[in-house]
């Protein structure tokens, strides 16, 4: 699909000027409204910066600024610390449509068409007549090159207005400045801010600073020091390949024999598999691929389905992983709980893809509003055409009532303090159109999105249940700590009688040992506090266990731990009736989001007599 528009473009170029083409396809290129034009300009620049940094294994530091020059005129500045662009290429990259480095790669990357950034230059030039200014530097001891340029719209060539060598106190990087017509909107779902926030979420390794027209500076902090692995290129996988594709591949191949064609042009087909396929398809291994008839191609396709072929290599994809998504979401959304899930890679029509999802619940999210949905494809947020997207369809087809949310009729977007997030990574994301804003409803993808979301949903449900239990517990505590003593006091006063001892009633209402754990994060530490109170009539001796992330370092535990083992701490406690104890400790070596809920377990005690902890069934000796 990516090359479709490229080819189309190239063809049209001969007949019409690029300016005309641009005018006609504004909507496809994302410049159809003033507010969207700003979003698109920022997006094209940021996508390129992230791509370039990824290729060069650099942790991205990106600065975006938007200044208002007149009513509908804005200056957009985008700067990165990427590898920079070599001098000769700078004019072409920014001043020539269709100039890019990844036309024919089968790889997961943000940019695909070689139109993005020159489109921005074109748009600004057409709407304000102002040239673009570019500054780029490829090494600490190399000069920085500055260009002012416009696009010659007749020839689709850069026209350089100024070319200079300047000093720039930056190791490497690229900076772009354009002035374009636009409209700045804030805090809308479709806005520069929202785009950057979502981008920061899905790229936790990037640090992004954004200066709004009114001078407000928003910093999206880096939450991971790991540059995502660079995805590698692969060949099409036979599974789900379409007839047309196979026939075209057979025409174009340089192989002379069917078997070598299969081995050479497809991924995961070795000599043995090729032989197996040929015999299943009743085709001669020595058949010239160019002579493959339609019927034969069909048989070949069927044989693909009948033979066991390994899934495509997954290193061509770069999923974020559950931990990173969780960190990304936690830093941008103030929720109580974040559950994430990364599905194993899968294939549609020979294209490997992989789905990741997240669900954030509670906290400061609005309770009475329709759930928010954040969509990503190859780590790029999708802001427009939500209704057409496979992710939306998957979310809406799930009965979220079963996971503890409100949802009218069990379909559509549920209502509640919840945000859904899904990321589809693929060497070829099947967009519904060239504007790359919605992913087509491909059954395989939809299925994977659903599975990922359901898994997150199950964890959210467990969280909701747990919170409800905690709520009940809190209510009970309130009864015994505040209300009941007041009832006793007032009743005695009305009747002018002595206040009775209510501790036996408290024991009757609670009749258990109460365990209440809390945690909060500050300055690199999670501080954990656990209150334990014996509200029974008898003395209790039992073991209390606390689960912790295996990488955490436990410090300052009070009382002292009795034992500590991989991921588990233990205390032996003895509490008389009405006794209570406050346990505290801190966990170091953790980042925000690495620890969820305080999970306590107990043993050697009647489960009926414990509130706030589960019974420990595992081994601990």
């Amino acid at each position, binding site marked *: 699909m990516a090359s479709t528009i490229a080819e189309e473009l190239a063809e049209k170029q001969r007949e019409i000027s690029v300016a005309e083409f641009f005018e006609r396809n504004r909507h496809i290129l994302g410049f159809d409204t003033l507010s969207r034009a700003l979003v698109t300009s920022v997006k094209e620049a940021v996508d390129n910066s992230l791509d370039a940094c990824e290729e060069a294994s650099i942790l991205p530091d990106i600065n975006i600024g938007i200044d208002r020059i007149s009513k509908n005129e804005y200056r957009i500045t985008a700067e990165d610390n990427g590898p920079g662009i070599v001098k000769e290429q700078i004019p072409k990259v920014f001043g020539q449509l269709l100039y890019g480095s990844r036309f024919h790669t089968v790889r997961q990357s943000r940019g695909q068409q070689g139109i993005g950034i020159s489109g921005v230059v074109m748009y600004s030039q057409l709407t304000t007549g102002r040239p673009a200014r570019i500054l780029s530097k490829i090494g600490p001891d190399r000069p920085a090159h500055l260009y002012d340029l416009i696009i010659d719209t007749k020839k689709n060539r850069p026209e350089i207005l100024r070319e200079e060598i300047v000093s720039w106190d930056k190791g490497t990087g690229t900076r772009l400045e354009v002035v374009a017509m636009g409209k700045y909107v804030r805090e809308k779902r479709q806005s520069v801010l929202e785009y950057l926030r979502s981008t920061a979420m899905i790229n936790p390794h990037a640090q992004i600073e954004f200066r709004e027209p009114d001078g407000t500076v928003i910093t999206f902090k880096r939450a991971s020091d790991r540059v995502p692995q660079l995805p590698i290129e692969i060949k099409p996988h036979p599974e789900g390949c379409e007839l047309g594709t196979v026939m075209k591949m057979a025409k174009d191949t340089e192989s002379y024999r069917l078997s070598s064609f299969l081995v050479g042009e497809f991924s995961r087909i070795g000599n043995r598999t090729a032989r197996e396929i040929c015999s299943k398809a009743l085709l001669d291994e020595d058949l010239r691929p160019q002579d493959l008839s339609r019927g034969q191609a069909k048989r070949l396709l069927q044989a693909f389905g009948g033979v066991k072929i390994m899934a495509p290599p997954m290193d061509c994809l770069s999923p974020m992983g559950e931990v990173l998504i969780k960190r990304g979401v936690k830093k941008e959304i103030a929720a109580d709980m974040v559950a994430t899930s990364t599905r194993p890679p899968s294939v549609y029509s020979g294209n490997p893809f992989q789905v990741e999802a997240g669900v954030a619940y509670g906290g400061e999210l609005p309770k009475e509003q329709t759930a928010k949905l954040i969509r990503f494809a190859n780590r790029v947020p999708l802001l427009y055409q939500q209704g057409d997207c496979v992710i939306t369809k998957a979310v809406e087809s799930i009965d979220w009532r079963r996971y503890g949310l409100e949802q009218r009729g069990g379909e559509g977007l549920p209502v509640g303090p919840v945000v859904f997030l899904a990321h589809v990574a693929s060497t070829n994301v099947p967009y519904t159109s060239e504007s790359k804003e919605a992913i087509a409803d491909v059954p395989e993808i939809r299925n994977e999105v659903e599975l990922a979301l359901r898994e997150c949903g199950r964890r959210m449900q467990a969280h909701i249940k747990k919170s409800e239990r905690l709520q009940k517990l809190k209510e009970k505590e*309130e009864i015994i700590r505040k*209300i009941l003593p*007041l*009832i006793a006091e*007032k*009743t005695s006063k009305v009747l002018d*009688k002595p206040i*009775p001892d209510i501790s036996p*009633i408290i024991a009757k209402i609670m009749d258990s040992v109460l365990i209440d754990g809390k945690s909060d994060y500050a300055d690199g530490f999670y501080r954990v506090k656990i209150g334990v109170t014996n509200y029974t009539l008898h003395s209790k001796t039992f073991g209390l266990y606390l689960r912790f992330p295996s990488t955490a370092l436990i410090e300052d535990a009070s009382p002292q731990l009795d034992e500590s083992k991989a991921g588990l701490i233990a205390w032996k406690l003895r509490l008389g009736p009405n006794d209570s104890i406050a346990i505290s400790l801190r966990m170091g070596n953790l980042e925000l989001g690495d620890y969820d809920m305080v999970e306590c377990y107990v043993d050697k005690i009647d489960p009926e007599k414990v509130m706030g902890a589960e019974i420990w069934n595992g081994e601990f000796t």
Partner: protein
Amino acid sequence: MSNKPVESLEDVARSVYKDLVEAKIPKVNLSTRTKSNIVFDDDSRVWKYGDQLSTRSAKTSDGAYMLLRTIYTIEFIKEMLATNKSSTLREMYYISEGWDFAKFHEQQESDRLVEDLEVITRQLREDFKLRPEENGASIIGNLTVEEEVRRGGKRRINCKDDVGDAGYTIPTNVEKDKLRLVDADGDFIIALETGGMFDRLVENGFDESSRAILVHLKGQPARSTRRMIKRINSELGLPVVVFTDGDPWSFRIYASVAYGAIKTAHISEYLATPDARFLGITPSDIVNYNLPTDKLTDQDVKALNTELTDPRFGNEFWKGEIKLQLELGKKSEQQALAKYGLDYVTETYLPEKLSSLGMGG
């Protein structure tokens, strides 16, 4: 003054105290106050609470709060009675502001608790020196009452000659020690839902021409209004008809006058007038008189369906009318009769409807 109210309140406190001393989780029981627990009492011909009991126990958060508030309220009433004061329900709600955890979040809650106390103690809120703040409704017609006046002594008022256009205002306490019914020269009482219709009948001289005593209900009638109607009906022997809008909420107004309200079923006997008849607007009237209508809202439809399961509307007449209204999907106001001119209601509609009830004419 008898000590009955104080005694009965202390009884409640004593039972809570006893639970505490015996190490039982404290609780109080009271009649369940929902439509599933109202039964028809053959002797008094009104709907009262049945045998179902609800328990408010300190085991749950709601129950514990309710108990605490009950004790606070008891203490408050006791002090009031001891110092010979009285207060409005609204004042009591504001006083609860100082009750810490026990404070009410809206007046409905405190009003409801006072009703609960009535149910538990079998006393009336008047006995607890609590009164509603709003005045009762008004009366115009040839009825003479004798009312205690502020500076002491009594005064006779004729509700036709001694009052202005607004009529005689029914006081919040209409008990015999405060208000005596002297006599009435009229054939029936007509209770009206809206002020507009009340004024229309006054302006058209309906009270004189038809020898009617007009009572303005002001929407859902206050206790004193219902008590007043009941007293005129039983002491002076005047029949009662109720004339309201033609919608589900108006049917409930009639039901509370005639059968007793669900909320106050513990005192139905004392408030309800079982002989009161519903005059209109009936859903049949909407059809027969071809009245201007509005569409039923979702809430209206819900209310009608609830009424179909309300035992008070269990007779053939109401079942038929309610189903008809659901079919029509329409409702009408009583003032919609003005479609046929301002005199139509007094000259045509009311005479026709009254004679169909075997009255008037």
